[in-house]
């Protein structure tokens, strides 16, 4: 009804804008708190930088931190292990690498890992892609694992659509998130719920030494996702949480602006 729309003051319009942004289908950090997080993600990256593994870890940590824990909530795996007893979720993390991936992009180094997962890492080195896929599936089926990281180089024949569908189904059945880093791979057919393309981006200068590299920043393009519109963000971690921003400042609150602009336009047209 036109009267309802015209009587809205401008302040409530802005509020409505933020509400709309919250409910929009855009991906943003901390989405795990609202609903079910995507359990099977693929991250495409170059083997000559650690951006893929870094961003995958950051995304996994973001989901893990924001997973609602506590009684009265079903769904996520975290709640049966932690929260109900008030103790932190200290389940280990499985990191599976093929030998090729380990040779190309190195093995995880304990002292460089995020603090909360240093003593929780279990590393699996598989000779072949088949072995790695087996390890990924076993990891996803295990209730005592917080999440599974995988690193597979190239496009091996074993990792076809059937294999990725198998992983998706297993991860959704058992509720263990899977982040598969694809090094040096073409964007082949896959049933992953979110597919990212990640590369490094220039970091912000640290406050006390402007010449030094700062906290890592990744340019992440979400090129295919179920339930989310594609988009591109610059990701970085700040104060123990994942932050995403648009490369152009104008894009940062596009959703809200469009929505409010549309409303205003409508109001103007109705006034006219």
């Amino acid at each position, binding site marked *: 009804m036109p009267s309802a729309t015209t009587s809205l003051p401008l302040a409530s319009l802005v509020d409505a804008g933020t509400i709309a942004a919250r409910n929009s289908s855009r991906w943003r950090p901390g989405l795990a708190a609202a609903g079910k997080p995507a359990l099977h993600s693929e991250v495409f990256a170059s083997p*000559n*930088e*650690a*951006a893929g*593994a*870094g*961003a995958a*870890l*950051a995304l996994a940590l973001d989901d893990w931190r924001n997973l609602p824990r506590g009684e009265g909530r079903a769904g996520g*795996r975290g709640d*049966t292990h932690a929260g109900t007893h008030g103790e932190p979720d200290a*389940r*280990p993390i*499985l990191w599976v690498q093929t030998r090729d991936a*380990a*040779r190309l*992009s*190195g*093995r*995880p*180094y*304990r*002292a*460089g*890992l995020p603090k909360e997962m240093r*003593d929780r*890492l*279990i*590393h*699996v*080195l*598989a*000779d072949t892609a088949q*072995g790695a896929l*087996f*390890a990924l599936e*076993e*990891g996803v*089926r*295990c*209730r*005592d*694992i917080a999440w599974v990281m995988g690193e597979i180089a190239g496009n091996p024949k074993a990792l076809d659509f059937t294999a990725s569908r198998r992983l998706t189904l297993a991860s959704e*059945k*058992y509720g*263990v998130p899977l982040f598969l880093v694809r090094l040096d791979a073409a964007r082949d057919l896959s049933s992953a719920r979110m597919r990212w393309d990640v*590369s*490094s*981006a*220039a*970091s912000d*200068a640290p406050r006390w*030494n402007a*010449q*030094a*590299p*700062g906290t*890592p*920043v990744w*340019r992440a393009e979400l090129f295919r996702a179920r339930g989310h519109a594609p988009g591109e963000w610059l990701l970085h971690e700040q104060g123990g949480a994942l932050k995403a921003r648009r490369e152009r400042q104008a894009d940062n609150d596009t959703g809200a602006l469009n929505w409010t602009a549309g409303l205003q336009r409508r109001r103007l047209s109705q006034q006219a």
Partner: protein
Amino acid sequence: MSARSGDLGSSRRILAIWLPAFAIDRWRIVTQKAGGTLDSGPLVLIADTAHGPRIEAANRLAMDAGARRGMMLADARTLCPEIATASSDPAGDLAFLERLAVRAQRWGPWSAMDEPDGLLVDVTAVAHLFGGEDALLEDVRAGFARRDLAIRTAIAPTAGAAWALAHFGRAGAIVDRELEQMLADLPVAALRLGSDVLTVLRRLGLKRIGDITTIGRDALQRRFRKRKVPEANPLLRLDQLLGRIPEPLLPVIEQHAPLTQRRLMEPIRHRTLLDQVVNDLADDMAQLLESKGLGARRLELGLWRVDGEVAVRRLEMSAATRDPAHICRLFAARLDDIEAGFGIELLRLRASWTEPLALAQGDIEAQTESPGTSLATCIDRLTVRLGPKAVSRPVPFASHIPERAQRWKPPLEREPPTQGVLEFHARPLKMLDTPERIAVLYASPDGYPQRFRWRGGVHEVARVEGPERIAPEWWRERGSVRLRDYYRIEDERGRRYWIYRQGIAGDGRGGPPDWFLQGLCA
């Protein structure tokens, strides 16, 4: 269960049993059992060495003819041409000695092997059960005589003293007090020292144990400096002998590995039947282990075929378990390459390594709520499929060198306690297995790198932090190892790396320094 002899003074009683002709006696027992002819003339047991057969043991007649242990057979043949030979069996001797050690527990609560040919039994406060220590020794003598084993025995307050008396003292000696005077006359060889140390002592003119005490401790302490190795230090051995310092001994404890087996009426040749039998064996094993409150860490499945072949499959679990379904699943992956031939007639499952595993209440609710597998099960499956080395976890190690500062350990082992590290410097997320050499362009030899080439690509250095100087570990490495200056860098496209320069120009350890890329930062 290590025995600390000596710290209780004279209250402790140790029985030493020495079998002087152990190898020959055992050879006789084995030959007699096999129906062979025993030695009537000189006989030696030989071992093959790179320089020909060498004598390991000789019987009385051969000894009389001049054959000695350690002599080459050819030398003995020149002394006594009609000498007969048989091959020695050190592994069999050791197994036999182990059985004897277990059997010797009838005279005391614990016994230890004194390789290669002796036993030590703790007979503290048990002699009255046999009617005194003399009667105890008599019982021991009769027990070994029944098995045609020659022995010499002694009882003393410490293991060292009992050993010395059994080897060099009066037969059947029982020493209670005045240990030092009783042992003063024995030769220094009674101190269980290495042959080179004995040679040194002989050259010094110290022939009896009593001589050692006369020249003073300080002189000997200066002469024999190895404090950790008792065989090389007469003072340490003397103190052990007199009970001034404890001497830990490793007792022999008999253990029965839980075992289940199935003899089959009809040899099986098909996989489905084999799986069924393995299933039954695993069920039996689970019951057996449950009754003992144990869980298996290592399982061995032996398959005996009709034509005499035996196939053995081994499993090692990351945590103690007795879940039959889990065991069957793990074995199923290992049975694919079994060749049945004419059929398998006997299967045997043995848990050669077990750990205590308490009975636990089955939780049906939790099972339905969280349907996944447990961590130990997951790791077992990965290990069986991918190999024992494939699954590991990084643990810190006390070292400055970055690649040494992390070690890979089995995943479910407890993390060793380590000192906390002060983190002044950031470390890369990933580390290459071997640092890769890069070609670096820099303004001055000791300055910041400006541009480098790695894996065919050129990287312009945009930001840099460093150097972080890591010196070689001089206590471990050779003197020519060069130091490393690490730089954390970011290139023009934001890629972050950890590179180092090995050495500095003009450090006198080689030519111009090389640059390497070791880590990839997130």
